[in-house]
């Protein structure tokens, strides 16, 4: 019960905060928000021992029995990591926001969105039912959208929000379909139950599409190449949001999902390849692009992309442990997954700290442009210290936690060489190493180009009052800074209490998770990984120093490409083409629409008829025709055809009237006196109506459509006529049943009326008659209204209320 409550609390809070804000209209509102994540964090901390003992907490609230969708929460090691990140980072970010955001901002809305996000994110990681997971998944997209567009007056904010929403929701929809396919295969929406059936799945045809679709969701959310393009634009959000959603938590949802599904899909080589290589490409592309950024925040965005790629590739390599390959030491690969989880945490600490620092710089100096910044170390010593820790950690330097996970990563990349799989031996270590070099470079950029150099700018900073911010603002980044260092010295505490249960969740079939947790040590000899690290530092330093020289690489073709351009072009093309395409057929011209409809009719019925031409015609049931009937019908045909050729509409009306009268006569011949009566009167009244409305209209002009149009019209008319005739003849020749009408011949005894038609109209089917006069009544009122209610303004304004 407690876990659903956990999820519910932020949602409830998100409703109350804006309400509260209307009363407490000040920055203090943040202090009221702070307890929520803090209490949740503390609560989760208390659960750690329970999970360490190998337990996990399940709770089900029944929701939709019909669709087998239930709100089942599941707290295990994996979700615990994310849960701690969400609440812990949440606490710090709120704390930071209290000082960061000015009083002028719409704080009520800000905290509402933030809490909304927090609840959704907790929902994502605690849900066992994939559809419920999806519910929260999309809600994180929505809250992210709202937060990115927080300053919606800015064009870029809106564009960024739109891009993030479109891409993540697209992925989400794909993921949903993947889940539905999983349901088709397994009959369940529960992840745990799916894991239980994992062995039988690869044989299913839907296995691969389901896997790819779920990965699509994960990749879009975690900003993996080529879907990463939304993340840099998401930096339009206030910095606390960037720190929280777009580096520490939301983007980790995709990572979480991949980790979650390793037990389900891990046995597939395709899974291994997809996750590993997408991760590696993202790692490379992110770090490569981070180097060229001038905006510190953009740099951090690309670095986040890169780091997410790193974690993703680690999970990919980790999934190799599930591959049924002979003679493979599984722990080599479980170690990769371990590294992934470890780095997941580490990344949140140093990246969160860095974002907050950048925020402080921006807040204090009003710019994030590297080219304008420099030499801040003297003015902002505390800020600088934290930045240094964060950057060096990210670069993989000791004594910071990033060093440890970087080592593990390099080892994992080398471990791949043991795999008997094509295409992995060379590329994975090389890409890993190159990307690490680039990572080193941009970390140096952060440190040295912001806090050192550019001495000439210093007086300007003094004028602007560059100094460390008030202590409150430094509190949150300081906490993270401490963690960066602490985790370097005590990594195994984290490993045992936090990561180990998660390993159990990723590899449920591997027995005791304790065996899956390697001992982390800062120094473990002159391993290949060590030499790689040395190489990274050396090459990185060289590259950093000669950056101005080789920077033009970014203008060379493949490196200058931006996936963004594809996105923009796609949307533009979509809008432009859809405009042209739609305008091509939605012309507003009635005759065009009639043409479509009739052509559809002809195509469908014509095809059907031509396929069943064997259906016999049978004229034996035909009743006799007398000479006068032949003459009259012939005359009717002439009169009808003449309508097409007469040059005045009055003649056409006359001909139509004659047609009506002769139809009435046919009704007499065909034994339908009531029809004849009605037809005659209705025809006359209709004719009178024609005359009444004609006075002001000009006579019709001869319509001379272009020849092809005319031929088409003739074709349509003739074909329609033929189809009607043929179908009618088929039906007349192949009546299947006696009509039910014999019953009505007892009308006299049944209803007391001797006129069967009227008995039907007034009794058997009186309801038709009742509605028919209602129709007539509406028609009458309609005509009245049509004439009487005139648009007084005359013009076509939108005054439609």
């Amino acid at each position, binding site marked *: 019960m407690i876990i659903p409550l956990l999820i519910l609390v932020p949602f409830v809070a998100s409703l109350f905060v804006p309400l509260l804000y209307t009363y407490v209209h000040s920055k203090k509102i943040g202090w009221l928000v702070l307890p929520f994540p803090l209490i949740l964090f503390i609560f989760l901390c208390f659960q750690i021992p329970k999970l360490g003992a190998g337990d996990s907490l399940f709770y089900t609230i029944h929701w939709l029995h019909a669709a087998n969708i239930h709100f089942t929460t599941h707290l295990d090691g994996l979700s615990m990591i994310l849960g701690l990140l969400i609440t812990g980072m949440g606490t710090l970010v709120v704390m930071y926001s209290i000082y960061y955001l000015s009083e002028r901002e719409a704080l009520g809305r800000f905290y509402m969105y933030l809490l909304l996000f927090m609840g959704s994110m907790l929902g994502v990681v605690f849900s066992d039912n994939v559809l419920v997971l999806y519910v929260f998944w999309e809600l994180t997209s929505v809250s992210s959208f709202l937060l990115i567009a927080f300053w919606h007056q800015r064009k870029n904010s809106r564009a960024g929000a739109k891009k993030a929403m479109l891409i993540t929701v697209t992925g989400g929809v794909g993921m949903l379909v993947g889940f539905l396919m999983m349901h088709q295969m397994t009959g369940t929406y529960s992840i745990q139950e799916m894991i239980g059936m994992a062995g039988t799945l690869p044989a299913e045809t839907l296995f691969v599409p389901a896997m790819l679709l779920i990965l699509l969701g994960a990749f879009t959310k975690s900003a993996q190449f080529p879907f990463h393009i939304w993340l840099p634009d998401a930096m339009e959000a206030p910095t606390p949001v960037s720190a929280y959603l777009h580096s520490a938590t939301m983007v980790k949802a995709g990572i979480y999902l991949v980790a979650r599904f390793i037990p389900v899909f891990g046995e597939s080589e395709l899974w291994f390849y997809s996750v590993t290589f997408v991760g590696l490409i993202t790692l490379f592309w992110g770090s490569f692009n981070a180097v060229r950024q001038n905006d510190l925040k953009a740099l951090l965005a690309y670095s986040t992309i890169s780091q997410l790629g790193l974690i993703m590739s680690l999970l990919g390599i980790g999934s190799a442990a599930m591959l049924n390959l002979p003679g493979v030491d599984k722990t080599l690969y479980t170690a990769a997954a371990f590294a992934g989880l470890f780095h997941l945490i580490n990344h949140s600490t140093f990246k969160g700290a860095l974002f907050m620092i950048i925020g402080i710089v921006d807040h204090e100096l009003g710019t994030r442009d590297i080219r304008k910044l420099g030499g801040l170390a003297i003015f902002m010593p505390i800020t600088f210290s934290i930045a240094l820790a964060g950057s060096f950690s990210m670069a993989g330097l000791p004594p910071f936690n990033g060093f440890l996970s970087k080592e593990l990563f390099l080892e994992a990349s080398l471990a791949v060489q043991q795999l008997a799989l094509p295409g992995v031996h060379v590329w994975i270590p090389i890409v890993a190493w190159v990307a690490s070099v680039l990572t080193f470079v941009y970390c140096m950029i952060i440190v040295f180009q912001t806090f050192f150099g550019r001495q000439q700018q210093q007086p300007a900073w003094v004028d602007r009052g560059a100094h460390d911010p008030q202590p409150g603002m430094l509190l949150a980044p300081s906490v993270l800074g401490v963690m960066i260092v602490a985790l370097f010295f005590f990594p195994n505490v984290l490993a045992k209490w936090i990561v180990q249960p998660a390993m159990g969740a990723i590899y449920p079939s591997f027995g005791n998770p304790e065996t899956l947790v390697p001992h982390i040590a800062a120094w473990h000899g002159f391993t290949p990984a060590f030499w790689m690290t040395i190489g990274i530092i050396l090459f990185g330093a060289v590259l950093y120093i000669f950056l101005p020289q080789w920077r033009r690489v970014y203008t060379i073709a493949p490196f200058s490409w931006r996936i963004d351009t594809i996105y923009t072009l796609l949307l533009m093309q979509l809008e432009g083409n859809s405009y042209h395409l739609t305008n091509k057929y939605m012309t507003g011209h009635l005759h065009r629409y009639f043409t479509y409809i009739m052509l559809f009719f002809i195509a469908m019925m014509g095809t059907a008829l031509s396929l069943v031409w064997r259906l016999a015609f049978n004229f034996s049931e035909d009743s006799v025709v007398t000479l006068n009937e032949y003459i009259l019908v012939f005359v009717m045909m002439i009169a009808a055809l003449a309508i097409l050729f007469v040059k*005045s509409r*009055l*003649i056409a009306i006359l001909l139509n009237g004659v047609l009506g009268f002769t139809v009435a006569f046919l009704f007499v011949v065909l034994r339908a006196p009531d029809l004849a009566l009605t037809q005659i009167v209705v025809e006359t009244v209709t004719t009178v109506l024609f005359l009444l409305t004609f*006075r002001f209209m000009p*006579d019709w002009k001869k319509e001379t459509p272009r020849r092809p149009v005319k031929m088409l019209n003739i074709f349509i008319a003739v074909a329609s006529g033929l189809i009607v005739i043929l179908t009618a003849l088929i039906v007349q020749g192949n009546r299947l049943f006696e009509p039910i009408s014999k019953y009505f011949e007892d009308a006299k005894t049944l209803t007391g009326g001797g006129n069967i038609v009227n008995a039907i109209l007034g009794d058997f089917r009186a309801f038709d008659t009742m509605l028919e006069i209602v129709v007539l009544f509406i028609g009458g009122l309609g005509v009245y209204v049509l004439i009487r209610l005139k648009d007084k303004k005359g013009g076509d304004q939108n005054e439609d209320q």
Partner: protein
Amino acid sequence: MNENEIGEFIGALLILFGGIFSVISVFGIIRLPDVYTRSHAATKSSTLSVLLTLIGVFLYFLFHDNFVSVRVLLGIVFVFLTAPVAGHLIIRAAYRSKVGLADISVEDELYEVLHGDSSEKDEERM
């Protein structure tokens, strides 16, 4: 042949006459030179033929079924009353809408009165 059969026969004969008359009068509608003369053929000869026919029908039912059809009688009266009015109105409309007389017409005492002073303008609307 009893008296009923004679009655029926007379009825049928009237009907046949009606048919013949109608063909002849419609022949007039084709042959005559202008709308005014054609209206003569229409309003009366065809009225006559219809009246003959309806009387025939009336007689037939009278003798065949001993049935006095008030509706047919009413129909006869109705045609009798309305046919001339209709003819008169069409012709008046024709003249007022300036449909010309045939060339063979010899005199027109109405022309001066109606179209002489062009105070009333009736353009053709068809």
